[in-house]
């Protein structure tokens, strides 16, 4: 069911709204998971949601609903009025009239929508079987799963702006445990794509199984400062946290370590980070939640911070253009990075390892929601990885921590590797990064 946005906009105007917008989101999915050769769970859904905002006396009110019927426009208008009434912000709310140009692309691949659940179930069963026979030490396949999700959204407002997007992707994931004696290690991988032909069962099985097997025999290293190489996944996690406080909202409220740092050196000259929401992959976006067009831009060029991120309101306040980074949640806009690309260096991981006599290679970081203080940049995180000895990877490490400060860390880059890959978790295409000395705690 679709709400006729006109009815909502007419009612909003009749109630004295200066402007209003409405975002309709619809999603449909099928997912399945396998355990011990049986379908353990199967889920399908179709849902819609409406997020509406309106400006009354210069103040924003906001409401969302999942119920669409003849009373919905009235519910949204009444709720927006109630919420706008208590707003005390001095800045006027802004509903956007539109950008000059939008780089719209259609990446919706019908072939993904046509993937049959029964085929996917067979693929999951095949994955499970192959994981069990991969190596005797794989003692349990915890889960193998598949998901196919399509979504579409429509943002419109009382100025006549109308923006549509439509996406689809499928996912395979699997988790195993490997056991030797009392030691249990887990292996986990997620594969996401918009092309049904991209998924290769044998490669996936190998990645999942090896992820667990390579960790067997893990020990704690001696506590001290080591040169540390973070793999692409963990490098991208740290980078995303590091750059989080470039939201101008945080800067203007004195809560960011990037205050007064625009166009200054905030990281090592070896680090260049480009934001390109328009790159053709599952993270493609051509407009943000406020309707501002997304463009490619530099974030860090040779370590120099080239921009903060501005929502409409913050851009107006700072006298600059909005940057296409707005995310509206619960009526509030804040700026969030679109997908990032770290400029790769020249050396391979192996060449970087070859220069390290004794160091640590980190492949896993845990407890980020608590162990990472994004305001101060201090972190102390449970980690896992490998020792680097005499230029080569040596014994696996578990139950260790790495601790440092993000500003300090990214100013101490020794080398950026050339092994860039797209990391799903962080929407960042990133290589491994080699840092000078970092505190590692083990035994």
């Amino acid at each position, binding site marked *: 069911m679709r709400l006729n946005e006109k009815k909502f906009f007419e009612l909003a105007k009749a109630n004295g709204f200066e402007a209003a917008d409405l975002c309709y989101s619809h999603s449909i999915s099928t997912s399945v998971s396998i*355990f011990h050769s*049986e*379908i*353990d*769970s*199967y*889920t*399908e*859904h179709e*849902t819609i949601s409406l997020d509406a905002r309106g400006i009354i006396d210069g103040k*924003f009110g*906001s*409401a*969302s*609903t*999942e*119920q669409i019927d003849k009373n919905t426009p009235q519910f949204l208008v009444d*709720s927006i009025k*109630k*919420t*706008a*009434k*208590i*707003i*005390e*912000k001095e800045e006027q709310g802004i509903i956007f009239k539109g950008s000059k140009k939008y780089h719209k692309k259609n990446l919706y691949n019908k072939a993904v929508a046509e993937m049959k659940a029964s085929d996917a179930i067979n693929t999951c069963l095949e994955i499970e079987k192959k994981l069990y026979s991969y190596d005797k030490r794989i003692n*349990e396949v*915890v889960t193998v799963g598949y998901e196919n999700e399509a979504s579409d959204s429509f943002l419109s407002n009382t100025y006549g702006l109308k923006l549509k997007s439509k996406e689809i992707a499928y996912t395979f994931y699997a988790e195993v*445990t490997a056991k030797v004696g009392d030691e*249990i290690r*887990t292996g986990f991988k997620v594969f996401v794509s918009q092309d049904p032909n991209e998924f290769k069962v044998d490669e996936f099985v190998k990645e999942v199984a090896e992820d667990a097997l390579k960790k067997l025999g893990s020990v*704690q290293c001696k*506590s001290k400062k080591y040169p540390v190489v973070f793999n692409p996944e963990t490098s991208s996690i740290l980078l995303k946290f590091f750059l989080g406080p470039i939201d101008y909202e945080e800067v203007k*409220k*004195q*809560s960011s*370590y990037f205050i007064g740092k625009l166009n200054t050196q905030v990281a090592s000259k070896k680090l260049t980070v480009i934001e390109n929401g328009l790159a053709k992959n599952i993270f493609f976006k051509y407009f943000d939640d406020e309707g501002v067009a997304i463009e490619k831009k530099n974030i860090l060029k040779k370590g120099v911070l080239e921009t903060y991120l501005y929502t409409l309101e913050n851009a107006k306040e700072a006298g600059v253009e909005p940057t296409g980074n707005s995310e509206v949640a*619960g009526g*509030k806009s804040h700026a969030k990075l679109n997908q990032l690309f770290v400029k790769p260096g020249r050396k391979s991981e192996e060449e970087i390892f070859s220069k390290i006599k004794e160091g640590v290679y980190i492949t896993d970081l845990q*407890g980020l*929601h*608590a*162990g990472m*203080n994004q*305001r*101060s940049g*201090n972190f*102390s*995180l*449970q980690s896992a990885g490998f020792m680097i000895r005499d230029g080569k990877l040596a014994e696996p490490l578990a*139950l*260790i*921590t*790495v*601790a*440092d*400060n993000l500003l300090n860390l990214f100013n101490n880059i020794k080398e950026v590797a050339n092994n860039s890959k797209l990391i799903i978790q962080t929407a960042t295409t990133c290589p491994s990064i080699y840092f000078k000395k970092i*505190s590692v*705690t083990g*035994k």
Partner: protein
Amino acid sequence: MISKKVAIDVLNAGLETGADFAEIYIEEKISNVIQIDNGKVENSSIIKTYGAGIRLLKKFRSVYGYTNDISKNGLLKLAKSLSNSFTGNREVTVTSIKTKKFKNITPVEIPYESVEKEEFVNYLKKGVKAMQDYDKRIIRTTAMISYSHKDSTIFNSNGIAINDSIERGRIALQCVANEGEKIETGYAAPGAAAGFEFFKNKVDIVELGKKAAAQAILMLSAKECPSGKMPVVIGNGFGGVLFHEACGHPLEASAVSKNLSVFSGKLGEQIASPLVTAIDDGTIENGWGSNNVDDEGNKTERTVLIKNGILTNYLIDDFNGRRMERKGNGACRRQSYRYEPTSRMSNTYIDNGTTPPEEIIKATKLGLYAKSLGGGSVNPATGEFNFACSEAYIIRDGKVCEPVRGASLIGQGKDILTKIDMVGNDLERSQGMCGAASGQIPVDVGQPTLRISEITVGGNGGELK
């Protein structure tokens, strides 16, 4: 909401191809949020959650679907589509549905909807002022209240209907302190499954604001935490997150029933120090993690998980209970109709011991006092966990000395339970949100002050001397 007659039709449609159990969960929830930033209301929003989930079970298989269309046709369409997952003949037919009643353990005196939004704003501003007045170095404050009223109905093929209403509210005060290049934060966030009377009668918002500000200011002067293995005294209240993560999650039937937990098959075994008794209690009146009934319609329970160190029970939902040949014990929960419910915690805590907390500090020569923890996570298969300390000090010669920042605790769940060598008598519970397979749910964590004889502390301050 739908009639019993419609529910019978939908359940029977789902059961047509041989499912042995069918269930409809219908939810309508109104949530409100008000956010104050640096003393001014910057954001306010009303959110309506509305939809239904249908679950079909056949032995160890579960099929789940959800939709916003809760008309008869919408639900029948979903039930029929889900039933296509099975290929057998009908085994169960629902002919009648009887409404089952439960005791209301979450009574409300002042419903949030009866209070003007301005009153919440005025209330929060007292906390904001307390933070701002505490110290010049507090450079930013935020305050938030979120409250919700949820009506839900469960119909299942056992011929049962359950109607439930629950109201929850939580506030969060947060501040940022700055000195030179240093930025630190303080935080406090109490809540309850109750009406606004909880805040009016039981929360001193001025004290709460001072507490949050004091934490941020204190951390400005804190040095980097030393690292290595050492004895750690963990403060009461939110310190219980350690038990929640390291032991609570591995005791959930979703992991135990599939033999994926380190505690699978260990009932009756000594898994913790004899000083440890741990309880999950979904029946605490107005508790943040309490429920009148769980999300598959079973009465919530007080479950003793560990008694004097011996594993006595798990957290079980009916579906995962099938593999264990056990009935659910009221521990089945979900964030909303968008999630299939599963075994989860409610209000989980380590029970009081007998030692006064001062004596625990006194008995520690050199170690860490983790007065307050910030949160953590665990890998249920390996039992490896991590926690960040939000307020911590070094203990020297039985006295709490200099504050330290950036400390994290890591270890193995099964080891840590056996290494608890002192348990205090100052049990306190704190509120949190727990995220897992069935979404984000409100939970209490809790414990008295306790000591772990040795645990790995991660930090950037070198060796503890």
